[in-house]
């Protein structure tokens, strides 16, 4: 019986040099070193070689949304470890560590905001939180984002960054693939556009669910987008992998994405798409939320966990 370890990408499956993990401010491709604030200002794109560093959820939102326009929802949801899962380390401890390290409740942040003046719902994943793995909270929050879009009659933009499903929630994690696909189907019923943005990496259960179903699907340069990771494919098939296996430009060539968009152009591209789609969007069925004055990042982090979950 050929038993195959299939389908799930994870943190350690990135075949690129691991220097970046050792020093997050050194470019893994050309070894250029940056100050932390410098890298933020560069949108975490290497000035020398164009390498796109991983971007966290809050920083991504700051890169994309009009200042102060983003209002987070469902921020209080937390993974609950129903299986009381322990491998070399307890899942509960992994969660605590991840929350301490990132200041995030889980691997996705959802809410509503404006991009280039156009209102949209947003769901942004964070690879730094357990490899952006999708468990119950990620699925629920993606569904909340879809609800927000429907309630407000606005599009949904999802920025994926994920090694796949979260093994520690096993079958519940798998079910999030169906749950998130149905969240997109709900948007389709409501005739609302869904824009999927795939960043490095978008693999496993995430690329095989909502992230693949964009009305428009964009990818960042050199992002890995495959269902099985390169190592799994190599080990299973003994085939020689193409050098650009699963990378976003290969996906463009193979017909799986609409465009590869450099990060410097991503906000403008999304703004343009929202404007293009705008004529089709039904009038909001509930009034738009009042726009808060732009809080500082510190304020936003401080207020984050106090805000209750809202489902539109």
């Amino acid at each position, binding site marked *: 019986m050929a038993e*195959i*370890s*299939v389908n799930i990408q994870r943190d350690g499956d990135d075949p690129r040099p691991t220097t970046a993990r050792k020093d997050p401010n050194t470019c893994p491709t050309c070894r250029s070193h940056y100050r932390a604030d410098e890298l933020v200002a560069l949108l975490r794109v290497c000035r020398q070689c164009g390498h796109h560093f991983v971007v966290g959820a809050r920083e991504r939102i700051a890169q994309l949304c009009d200042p102060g326009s983003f209002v987070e929802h469902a921020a209080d949801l937390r993974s609950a*470890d129903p299986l009381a899962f322990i491998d070399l380390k307890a899942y509960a401890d992994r969660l605590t560590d991840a929350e301490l390290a990132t200041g995030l409740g889980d691997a996705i942040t959802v809410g509503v905001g404006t991009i280039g003046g156009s209102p949209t719902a947003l769901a942004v994943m964070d690879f730094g939180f357990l490899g952006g793995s999708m468990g119950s909270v990620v699925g629920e929050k993606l569904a909340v984002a879809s609800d927000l879009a429907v309630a407000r009659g606005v599009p949904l933009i999802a920025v994926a960054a994920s090694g796949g499903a979260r093994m520690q929630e096993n079958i519940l994690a798998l*079910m999030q693939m169906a749950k998130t696909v149905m969240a997109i189907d709900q948007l389709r019923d409501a005739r609302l556009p869904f824009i999927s943005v795939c960043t490095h990496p978008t693999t496993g*259960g995430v690329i095989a669910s909502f992230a693949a179903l964009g009305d428009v699907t964009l990818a960042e340069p050199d992002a890995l987008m495959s269902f099985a990771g390169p190592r799994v*494919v190599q080990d299973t098939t003994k085939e020689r992998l193409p050098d650009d296996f699963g990378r976003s430009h290969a996906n463009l060539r193979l017909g799986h994405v609409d465009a590869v968009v450099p990060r410097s152009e991503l906000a403008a591209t999304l703004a343009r798409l929202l404007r293009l789609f705008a004529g089709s969007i039904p009038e909001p069925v509930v009034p738009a939320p009042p726009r808060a004055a732009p809080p500082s990042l510190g304020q936003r982090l401080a207020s984050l966990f106090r805000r209750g979950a809202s489902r539109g």
Partner: protein
Amino acid sequence: MVRVTDEVRRLRRRFQERGEESQIWDAVLLARHTSRPYTLDYVGGLFSDFYELHGDRAFADDPAIVAGIGTYHGRPVVCVGNQKGRDTVEERIRRNFGMARPEGYRKAIRAFELADRLGFPVLTFVDTPGAYPGVGAEERGQAGMIASSILAMARLEVPVIATVIGEGGSGGALALAVGDRVLMQENAIYSVISPEGCASILWKDAAQARKAAYAFRPTAASCLDLGVIDAVVAEPSGGAHKDHERAIRLVDVAISAALDEVLALAPRDRRLARRAKFRRMGVWGTAEPDTTASGLAAER
């Protein structure tokens, strides 16, 4: 730090109390038993006639998934299932050990759409280690086709009864398992990754598969507790491979009952109920009110 619900506590207690470890590994072995009834065995046993459809109308016919039109208790149905090869090495290879390529899922989608168009209920049988992780399969859009198959099932207005009859492995299994009712045989397994895959990632050692299986509980009982499946279908004592006929009869009774329930709904209600059911899946808690991010951020 996380406020968990009574439901989560109940689940954890139940899992701790069960002491089901040996049963778990037995199920893994039984689910993979090479004499276990496969999809085409159920097709032969459940349908008075069956005509197999072939091809994805785009690239190939994938023998790792079978699809066709059957007569089930006098009613036309569409049947789609993963298919492992039996008996010879050639046949196992031809069926690719039940691991489908995008063409297989595209064929499944074609069958789903045919069912919806003609008003036939859909019965699926899930039995795969996972979708095939090959270069060509990836290049031809394995991920997107799995997503599309899930979406196609989500959109069906006809009844959908999915039965996990062996290995329910990962997205490759879920792509055929989005049912109004999801049934699972007593010794079948259903998981986000194989125990070996889980062990190799989390324990850095595929040989720790048994340990991984204990930890992530791919069993029918666990799936039922977690609200992922709707019913566990009993097997003949010793496992379904001991008595195919009886195993098939037990599955028949369970599918019939489930189908009757689902047929009672109006088509559009059926689809929305399916969506609502999957929307409920997942278990989570909320942050304790006194745990603030600023506090956490300060610790960094």
